[in-house]
């Protein structure tokens, strides 16, 4: 009888490179695209400096956080259509009350709001697990609820935030080339996501997105992990809302509408499969920047804002179609 040595340790370096390429190829591609766009961007206006980089960071920061929120939920095998409106809610509440606060109080309040948004996410997750209603429907309902609440609290755009708070997202850190918003983004990624990702909670997150049954049989508490996913999503959505307050300086109840679709688009463009279990947060973050940059470049080139929207939308569709083709070739259905 032959000894069954399936998938023996293959020392051929080619295999490892191929495997890396397969697993992270798409994300790498997104970063290459981002680099290419930045280089192109530099060539467009007559003068290009740190100020432009700064404005990109400001524009993209809330988007990047929203993309992270959505990515966490999608990786766990779900989807959250309420990301945008939860963002609006946090934005509106923070702008309403921070307008008259000191910087220190504003920070404390921000922390409180983060706790609140995390709780909101936990609430959504609990609803989903208890009611057995598909997540699309529940998060759609919650979208209505949060949006309505935001509208009730702040019917028209208004409010403000202390200067130093605004500068958290719009200022610089050490050098004019390092936008502080970017630093905060990186901190959130490194301090919160990275430690979780390789540890049990993160693995559990991936496992329920990959194969819920196998996860359950492996001893993972599917209920608890799902609630965790939505809570973490709520946390990042809260960060997104706070970032929005800092970058825009006001609270706008309708601000989040844009982010719901685009967060999903950024996640898909960032290489995270909609079925779950695959990908990371680093891709969607880059994708958020890519999408923002595309719009910026178009506006710089004098394209009408609406045309820019058409082009951006079409781009999303085309990229996703190509992605769909790639999967199809691999699966040969």
């Amino acid at each position: 009888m032959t000894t069954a040595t399936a998938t023996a340790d293959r020392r051929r370096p080619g295999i490892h490179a191929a495997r890396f390429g397969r697993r992270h190829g798409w994300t790498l591609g997104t970063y290459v695209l981002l680099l290419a766009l930045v280089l192109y961007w530099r060539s467009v206006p007559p003068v290009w400096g740190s100020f432009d980089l700064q404005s990109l960071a400001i524009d993209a920061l809330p988007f990047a956080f929203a993309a992270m929120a959505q990515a966490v939920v999608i990786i766990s095998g779900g989807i959250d259509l309420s990301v945008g409106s939860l963002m609006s809610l946090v934005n509106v509440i923070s702008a309403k009350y921070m307008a008259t606060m000191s910087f220190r109080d504003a920070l404390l309040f921000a922390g409180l709001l983060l706790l609140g948004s995390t709780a909101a996410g936990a609430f959504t997750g609990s609803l989903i697990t208890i009611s057995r209603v598909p997540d699309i429907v529940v998060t759609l309902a919650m979208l209505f609820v949060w949006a309505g609440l935001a509208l009730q609290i702040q019917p028209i755009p208004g409010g403000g935030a202390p200067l130093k708070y605004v500068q958290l997202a719009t200022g610089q850190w050490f050098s004019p080339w390092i936008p502080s918003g970017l630093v905060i983004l990186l901190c959130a990624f490194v301090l919160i996501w990275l430690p979780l990702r390789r540890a049990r909670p993160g693995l559990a997150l991936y496992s329920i997105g990959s194969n819920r049954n196998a996860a359950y049989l492996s001893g993972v508490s599917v209920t608890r992990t799902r609630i965790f996913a939505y809570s973490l999503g709520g946390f990042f959505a809260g960060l997104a809302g706070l970032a929005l307050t800092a970058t825009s300086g006001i609270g706008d109840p309708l601000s989040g509408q844009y982010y719901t679709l685009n967060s999903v688009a950024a996640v898909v463009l960032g290489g995270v499969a909609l079925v779950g279990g695959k990908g990371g947060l680093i891709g969607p973050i880059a994708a958020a920047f890519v999408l923002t940059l595309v719009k910026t470049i178009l506006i710089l080139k004098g394209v009408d804002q609406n045309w820019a929207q058409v082009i951006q939308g079409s781009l999303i569709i085309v990229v996703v179609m190509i992605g769909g083709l790639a999967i199809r070739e691999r699966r040969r259905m």
Partner: protein
Amino acid sequence: MIDSGEVHALLGANGAGKSTLVKVLTGVIRADGGRLVLNGEEVQISSPSQAARVGLAPVFQDPALVPDLTVAQNMRLTGTLREAVRSRLHEMDLNVDFSEQAGDVPLPMLRMLDLARALVRDPQLLLLDEITAALPSDLAERVFAVMRTRREHGRSVLFITHRLAEVIAVCDRATVLRDGSDVGTLVPQHGGERKIVEYMLGAEVATAAVKASELDETEVRISTDGDAAAAAAEPALEVKSVRAGTVESVSFSLRPGEVVGLAALEGQGQDDLFATLAGERRPEGGEVLVGGRLLRARHPYDAIRAGVVLVPADRLLALLPQRSVRENIAAPRYNRLLRWGPINLRLERRRVQEAIDALQIDTRAYRQVRRLSGGNQQKVTIARWLASGFGTLLCFDPTRGIDVGTKQQIYSLLRRLAGEGAAILFFSSELTEFPLVCDRIVTLYGGRITAELPAAAADEASLLRAMHGLAEEVA
């Protein structure tokens, strides 16, 4: 009741309750009543982790490994030490790359991994749920070795299987379940297969026999308003040097009215061969002729149009769970644009009822097909082709995981279909089935046909030899 240091088999027809029992023992579902006594103490098991703590370790048919995580990450997820699992694998003379994604590891290897992981905790009771189903014989041997080792260490094994030969070879005792309760425990070596089957069928043995003969009388009509292939002189199906995926080069032919069996070990090309014939994939080389005409199939539709239809092993692939039996059986009738208009209800009802009667499908008041038992579901997948018409029937392990009674009915049906002029290609993972159903058998090894045997000469030894690619022994 299982003694310590015993390998105990759990047998029973489909729907008898084996899987449910295992799920209760391992905390996947909760018991409605009764008691569980472990080592003299009563226990309540409410979750898989609790089951593990009490010393019960299951290995399910679907390995509990998350496909998108690496093997190492899967171990971390369950809190199992990598080294411990690796050493268990070594004991079985196996090796796995832990940095490989679990989804890329072939299924038999995943099962062995699952087994190794279960062994790490040195469980009091190892539950093996159909672990040897679709496992190549060399790996199955290792599993048996593990079972014997556990016994020597005073630990117990609960072995659930449909394979009676294995039960007789390895187990100390066997309990048979029927309709949700145990009907008896016996020592398999005393009485053998017949005794076990008796227990499983119980009083229905007599009625099953009657049913079979009843079936023999009723005429089975394959609907002619479908795509039945024509001529009887022409071979129904000709496979010429087909190359596709793991199929290197396969040639054989099928005449109307005959049942040809295909025997092969796991992964020798039968999956790709059937997929090619059914139109799911295009051959990379060679050609397939149906009724003398070249089949250029880019989609199962093309094959079905030519009269070649597939009954897959996995019922979940073929059935519409939320739809009724009638809709399931009638489904292929509307698979093209021209048939999307108003439905001829009377004709549909007639065809569907004919198929249901021919197969004796137990429909009762069930509205949704997912409520049927496994055996009945499989009958539905066959019934749909009776109702839509066909010339060549490709059966890929149609009796996998089906109870004995239904199996007999399916054998009988296949013979009768052949009698009506259908050409049938029959693949099974159970060698004992071949002489019951087939006129001749071809064996597949390494993507090639290695032998062709008439049914009379196809005893297990010759088949196994050919399936391993070994030449015929000179008598």
